[in-house]
């Protein structure tokens, strides 16, 4: 099972970024909510690895 990692970078102004790796399904959103707390979301995006994983999954399905 792939390890799920959460990396938080807090900049010099106290604002932060969250990098989530290895999550599947709703676990990704839950982890984001857990670490977001009361903070305001400025940006949220899926990373390229998400799309490559999705493409890979679709290719697997097409082969079947």
């Amino acid at each position: 099972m792939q390890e799920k990692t959460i990396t938080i970078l807090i900049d010099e102004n106290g604002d932060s970024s969250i990098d989530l790796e290895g999550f599947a399904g709703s676990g990704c959103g839950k982890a984001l909510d857990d670490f977001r707390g009361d903070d305001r979301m400025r940006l949220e995006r899926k990373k390229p690895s998400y799309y490559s994983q999705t493409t890979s999954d679709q290719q697997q399905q097409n082969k079947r």
Partner: protein
Amino acid sequence: MSKYAELTTILREQRFLIAALEEMGYRAELHQDGAHLIGYEGKERPEVAHVIIRRSQLRPASNDIGFARAPDGRLVALLSEYDQAVGYDRAWLGRVQQLYKEKQTVSAAKAKGYIFKGKEVIRTANGPQIRLQFVTR
């Protein structure tokens, strides 16, 4: 699935603010109902705050620095123009927010069962950045 998000920190929890100020060397006062700030000449100022750093812990001609609870629950910094000019400026406030965010993140992660893997302080031209890493199963 992998995701990336950027967040603006909002000061809301007094305990993490007080812990952040303590790490910076201040003993902040907590006033549930608010208290007036005191100015450099020893007179009461009109501003009311709920977390206060008294001027005796600041520079000789400083006023008290406060954080007031806004109607929406946020803690808003009250800094005089003089104090902003002598070092209690945006960068100082950024450091307060940075330490607040660190303490709030570590506490939230622990409460939700995430495993702390490490902390790294990254030196940049604009100041230190804090990198925290957690894992979960």
